[in-house]
Structures are given as structure tokens and as C-alpha cells.
């Protein structure tokens, strides 16, 4: 899907063993190793197969509704009084977020591999809905693992998944959020490797998942780059995207990595503040370790026990991050900043009132970085914010936060 890259390109990782510098890799139980190697072979073959690419692109256009618009946000730009603010409108995709791009790619791979059952983990429920959607579209059985805490705070998405024919399994271990859902999905997968494909929702997990999820999501950045060139004749000066696992962010960033003049900022969930124990900012407040199949920055104690993440946004409530982000952080190509719950809620409301767009709480984290970045930039500078999802699913959380009874 990509043109050949220069040897010094930042876009030619992972290496053949799935490493991005010291990060990434394949830290899985032996039972899964042969399947992971199969998946890697199959993905290589699919990438080289024009029919696979054609089917992927056809579905993105006619089923997902791509390309998503690149929109200039005039009132938010005026409000912050600095750089022009543009939105990449991933929230207009079918199912309401960027997640569907990846699910289309992975289900085509599952079908190529002859797998008949699909499993996935979900936090906010966006990936669960997207997975249930593609399973319905292709007639495969679908089981979604979701932390019981998230089941309670994301009821509309739980019902959506059920309408789409998925079985939703509430996971009660740990804090019963995204991390625990992923543990349970891995346990189920290890016992059902022969017929089951695991559609991982973010650019994390064992190789080749971080690579293939990134590749499927890179349609975001490729479109944004072409759209910006067509509209303004130039590249943007800065990209901003929210980062939980980081699939929307790597999808936007990756096609621009070799454009040295394009700055990139990933926004982590600062929860109640990175100086408290209640946040999900693994780069800002964590250190490298091994979890869920990859080496990456993790929230952990001195013994390597994983600590619970917190974010008002269920989609960011995870103690790790995709390994390519850990690498981009260490080489300094991308800056990562935390934004706390209250800042995100404020930015959510501002976007509603100034642009008539209800953003997902995940995306509101990216919007909340604007007051720290946009006013310091000249008015001829351009920022693209990845509006990764729509906020309909979050209205109950926001109402609760604002003390409004629905």
C-alpha cells in the first residue's frame, strides 16, 4: 500500500521481528506463537495482493463512507486566536469512529485465513461496535469481551453490539475495564486458536498487530495529506490526536513521519492529573515493560505489577500504549502531552457550542490541547486535529459530570 521508502525513513519499522527500536515484539504464550506467525505470513501475502487492496478500498468507500472530510473549524480557530484549526472528520464514518477502518482490514484477513469466529476486546464500545458491524456484514460469529465497569458506563454501545448480533461478555476481573477485557480475550483466543481470529482494536499487541492496524488506519493520514495539499497547496504545521492504544493517532501521523516540518502531538489521558494515581498517561507517567504481547511504556509499580489506569474516557482507560508510539516518543519525533478529565469535558462542550459537533470524549482530549498550542502559533499556521469519534455514546458520562439528570 506504500511507495518504497528511503533507508533512513521513519516509516520502515517494524523490523522483521516486529520491533520498533526496543519496543514491540511477540511476547505471547507458546500456544499463540504459531498463529501469530501464520498471521504475519498471511498479512504479507494480502499486502501484495491487488484483490485484497481493491476489496479493502471498495468497502472503505461504499460501506464506511470514505474519504472522511477535512473541515476548517472557523469559530474554534477564532476562539483560540492563533493557528487555523482543521478537523479530520473520522466521526462521520459508519459506526461513528475511526475503529471501522481497522475492522474492515482485519475481517478480510480473517476470511483469507479461513477463520469463522471473531473475538475482540472493547473499552468505550466503539471497537466492539465496529467489530460487531463487520461480523454482521460478513456473516461471522462475534464475541466481544468488555469490562463490567465499561458495560455499565457504555450501555448504548452494549445494546448496539447486541442488535448487530454479537455476544457481549462482561469481564469482572481486575478493575473490570479495557485491560481486563484484553486479558480475557487472550484467554479465550488461546483455547480457540483453531477457528478464531482476534480483531485487536488498537495498534498494540504482538507483532504483526501494531503494524497491520497502523497500515489499515493510515488511510486517515494519507487522505488528510492529499486533502490539505488540494485545499491549501501545502502541508499542515501540526497534527494533534488522542492516544489511548494510539491507533487513530498512528493512522494520522504515519504518512507524515518523513515530513520534517510537520510537528505531531499525541494527547494522553491525564485523568485526575498525572501527579495523582488516577490517570492513563503511560508515556508521561510510565516506563517500558511487557504486557499483552508487546514491549511498550506501561503504568506499573517498581515490581512490574501493572497499575490501574483512570480516564473519564473509557476508550483511553488503558495502562499501556502502542509500541510505535513508545518509539516515536523516545526518538522525539512525536511529543506526547497529558490532558486531564476536566479539561477534556470543557473542550467537549466548547466543540459542541462553537462548531456544532459533539466529539467523542477521546477526541475531546485532543481538542483540550488546543489552548496550550494554537494561541502560540501564527494565524497562517495550520493544525489538523483528528476528530476520531463522535460523542453520542458519551452524553450520559458528560451529563453525570455536569450534574444533569437525564
Amino acid at each position: 500500500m506504500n511507495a518504497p521508502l528511503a533507508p533512513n525513513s521513519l516509516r520502515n519499522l517494524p523490523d522483521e521481528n516486529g520491533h520498533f527500536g526496543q519496543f514491540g515484539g511477540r511476547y505471547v504464550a507458546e500456544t499463540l506463537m504459531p498463529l501469530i506467525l501464520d498471521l504475519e505470513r498471511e498479512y504479507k501475502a494480502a499486502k501484495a495482493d491487488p484483490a485484497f487492496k481493491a476489496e479493502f478500498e471498495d468497502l472503505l468507500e461504499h460501506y464506511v463512507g470514505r474519504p472522511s472530510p477535512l473541515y476548517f473549524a472557523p469559530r474554534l480557530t477564532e476562539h483560540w486566536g492563533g493557528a487555523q484549526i482543521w478537523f479530520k472528520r473520522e466521526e462521520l464514518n459508519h459506526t461513528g469512529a475511526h475503529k471501522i477502518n481497522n475492522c474492515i482490514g482485519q475481517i478480510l484477513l480473517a476470511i483469507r485465513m479461513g477463520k469463522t469466529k471473531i473475538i475482540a476486546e472493547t473499552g468505550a464500545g466503539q471497537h466492539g461496535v465496529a467489530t460487531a458491524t463487520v461480523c454482521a456484514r460478513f456473516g461471522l460469529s462475534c464475541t466481544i469481551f468488555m469490562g463490567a465497569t465499561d458495560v455499565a458506563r457504555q450501555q448504548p454501545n452494549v445494546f448496539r453490539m447486541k442488535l448487530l448480533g454479537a455476544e457481549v461478555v462482561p469481564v469482572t476481573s481486575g478493575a473490570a475495564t479495557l485491560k481486563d477485557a484484553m486479558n480475557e480475550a487472550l484467554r479465550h483466543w488461546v483455547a480457540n486458536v483453531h477457528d478464531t481470529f482476534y480483531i485487536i482494536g488498537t495498534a498494540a499487541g504482538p507483532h504483526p498487530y501494531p503494524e497491520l492496524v497502523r497500515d489499515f488506519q493510515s488511510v486517515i493520514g494519507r487522505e488528510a495529506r492529499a486533502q490539505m495539499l488540494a485545499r491549501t497547496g501545502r502541508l499542515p504545521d501540526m497534527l494533534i490526536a488522542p492516544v489511548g492504544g494510539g491507533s487513530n493517532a498512528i493512522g494520522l501521523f504515519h504518512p507524515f513521519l518523513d515530513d520534517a516540518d510537520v510537528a505531531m502531538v499525541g494527547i494522553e489521558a491525564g485523568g485526575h492529573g498525572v501527579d495523582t494515581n488516577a490517570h492513563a498517561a503511560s508515556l508521561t507517567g510510565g516506563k517500558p515493560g511487557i504486557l499483552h504481547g508487546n514491549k511498550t511504556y506501561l503504568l506499573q509499580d517498581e515490581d512490574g505489577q501493572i497499575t490501574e489506569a483512570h480516564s473519564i474516557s473509557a476508550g483511553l482507560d488503558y495502562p499501556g500504549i502502542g509500541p510505535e508510539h513508545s518509539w516515536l516518543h523516545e526518538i522525539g519525533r512525536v511529543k506526547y502531552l497529558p490532558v486531564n478529565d476536566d479539561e477534556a469535558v470543557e473542550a467537549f462542550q466548547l466543540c459542541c457550542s462553537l462548531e456544532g459537533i459533539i466529539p467523542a470524549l477521546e477526541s475531546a482530549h485532543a481538542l483540550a490541547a488546543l489552548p496550550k498550542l494554537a494561541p502560540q502559533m501564527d494565524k497562517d499556521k495550520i493544525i489538523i486535529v483528528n476528530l476520531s469519534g463522535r460523542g453520542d455514546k458519551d452524553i450520559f458520562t458528560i451529563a453525570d459530570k455536569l450534574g444533569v439528570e437525564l
Partner: protein
Amino acid sequence: MSARLSAAFAKGRPALVTFVTGGDPTPDATPAILDALVAGGADVIELGMPFTDPMADGPAIQAANLRALAAGTKTATIFAIAKAFRARHPDVPLVLMGYANPMIARGPEWFAAQCQDAGVDGIICVDIPSEEDSEIGPALRAAGVDFIRLATPTTDTARLPAVLNGSSGFLYYVSVAGVTGKQQAAVDSIKDAMDRIKSATDIPVVVGFGVRTPDQAAAFAAHADGVVVGSALVDLVATHGADAAEPVRALTAALADAVHGAKATA
């Protein structure tokens, strides 16, 4: 290979390998439970290092991990338990089993040195396959600590040499594709797997996952160099808490009788 592990597999009969989670239900209760395993006749002791996210474990051992952590079990606690065990039982092989992150948190060299100091004979790490050996393998080998790998029903003949390369002490054959303590493999599948693996290596091969009763243990032991029992013992700890030592000893004794006599009656 550690001399203690060599001796454990050179008794002319299959070995009983027993697993309990360190610090479950409390760090203070673990030494008596380990002593009960030895008193019952276990040949190799696996001491589980608790982890917050035990992805390869079923409900019984998941709960044991969380009980141990809730009781304040730290990495230092595990090594203190191991060191005291070594002082009480100079000849019984002791193996630590767990997940990668707690093992590498202070660097693999630190971990290997702690193992050496505490008299730990080997390490089983669930989520470091042979592809990622460099994460901890060189440090363990330099410290003379066996790195015990796992093979599974999905490890085919082509892949087996890679799994065996760098593996020492013994090989742990996971009898079912799944998590600990759940379903049980058919004896025929064990026999086929053992034939395949034994033709590729000289190191002892033990079978585990889903073995709960003396009868099951004996059936597997007839085809292997040893059998691992974990969840059934961990269940006793869950039920009896700080008073678990005697029931653990009794089950271990029954398992040991069955396993040790398996080849003679097969």
C-alpha cells in the same frame, strides 16, 4: 542443567511437579504449604510469582495471584520465601513460574542474580517465547539458572527445535490449547506429543494443564518424565487458607503415589 533438577528426573520413575502461588493466601502461610508439598512427596516445586494480569491462567490461579498481591506479596517476598525454602530443603529443586514483566522490571541481570542467590534452579516464563529469548535467556544462562520453555499442541515439528534451543532443566508440555485448570487433554494426544518431543530432545519432558486427580496424573505420567499439578492444589489453598498445609500434603501424597507408580502399572 541444575544438579537438583537432574537428580529429580533420575529416580527411575516419573516425577511429580507441584505448583502453588507464592504469597497465597499470605506470605506467612506459603512456607508451610511448600513444606507440605515436599512432605507429600513432590519431586519439583514450582513457586508462582503473582502478577496483576495472569493472561494464561484460568479462574483458580487468577484468584490466587490476586489474593497474593492483596496480601502484600512483593518480588522481594518471593525471593525471601525461595531463600528460606532452600535453607530448609537443600536438595529439592525449586522453580519460579510467572510472567515477563515482574521478571524484567529491574533488568534481567538483577533477576537472574536474585535467583542464583536464593538457590532457585530454574524459571518458567509464560510470555517469553523463543523469539524473544534475548529478553531474559542470556542473563539466566550466565547465572546458571535453567530457562524452562513451554511447548504446546500448536508447537509443530518444524517449530519444536526453536523452542528446544536454549531450553534447559526440563521442557513443560502444555497438554491443551487453553488456560490453566480448565479442560483436560486425551491421553492418546499426550502419548503422540511425547513421542514427537522425546525424539527431538534428551531433556526431561513434563506434562501439565488440567491435571487434577491422582488417576489423571497417573495416566499422563505413564507417557512422560513427569506431571505438573497446579490448580487442584491452589483450589485447596483457596478453600482452607492459612490451614491449607495438611490438605495440600494429603493430595500431594496421593498424587505422588499415583505418579511414581505409573510406569510400573502402565
